[in-house]
């Protein structure tokens, strides 16, 4: 695999990983207990 293809492969991996994290955060519906807003 040449350098260009490798970088492309890494970029796609990073994108999918960040997308899966975002989806997980969005999917979370359980509000936590014991917290307060800070001004």
């Amino acid at each position, binding site marked *: 695999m040449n350098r260009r293809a490798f970088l492309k492969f890494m970029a796609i991996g990073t994108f999918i990983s960040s997308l899966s994290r975002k989806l997980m955060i969005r999917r979370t519906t359980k*509000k936590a*207990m*014991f*917290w*307060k807003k800070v001004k």
Partner: protein
Amino acid sequence: MGKRIKCELCPTECELENYEVGGCRVRINRDGELFSLVYGNPCSVAVDPIEKKPFYHVLPATDAFSVATVGCVLSCKFCQNYQISQGSPEKSDNKDLQPDELVRKALAYNCKSVAYTYTEPAVFYEYMYDVSQIAKNYGILNTMHSCGYINEKPLRELCKYLDAACIDLKAFTEDFYAKLCGGRLKPVLDALVVLKEEGVWTEIVNLVIPTHNDDPKQIDAMSRWIVKNMGEDTPIHFSRFFPYYKLKNLPPTPFETLRTAWETARNAGLNYVYIGNMRTNAENTFCPVCKKIIIQRVGYTVKEVNIIDGKCKFCDAEIAGIWET
């Protein structure tokens, strides 16, 4: 603006910007509200003997339905479960197990208790709290193995449903907690007092790490604090350390060190002192009055129980603990 929040679950009290995750890696500020990232998604589920927790005075020879999610409020350099405790939810292999389904499984496997263990249960507080309520309704005990790093208010709320707690008292100096755990000792001692006040059965675990917390003077001070604040019937387990995670440079704890710790705690007035992670006579429970073996163990296996209705079979002395549901 206006979306900054403060988590009040553990003494770290992280202040989080929008979409920032707490130090435990499992609680996130999402648009000004705190959410749990691990509710109903445990990474570890197993049926274990309750002796593995270790609970030596809670329903001996029964199984505990054990559950954990990723995350921890501390970052101990000697963590024996660092792969999950120091992990984050998106990088772990999680199951979908909602509270009612968890209790159904515990009943199906004939478990007398649910154990919130392996990592730090405080980080999945909401999950533990909901499971506890359902388990209680079905006559299943709720037990947790925790580092005790939790604020008073959430702990008191949890104590409504919690039957027993096994607390890691990692050392008796602030210096140890600061350097090796990334936390403080004082909140742990406060949590122990709260558990005592709330009537939760408590056992203490102390992992004896060579050169770090094996000073007999420190163990003596810790044992005397336990006698004074928790009572002489509080069991303490001195566990053998094995080199792991970031403390691979140290040797396993020598038997002599554990024996000295055992003797020091006994001399300080504690009735039930055990040595863990090692096969010795000190894994048995002795009656504090007649000195006979009332629970004989080999590792996690219970060979013999000589307790009838919470009393020693030989001399009728009361033995502290939870012996029936």
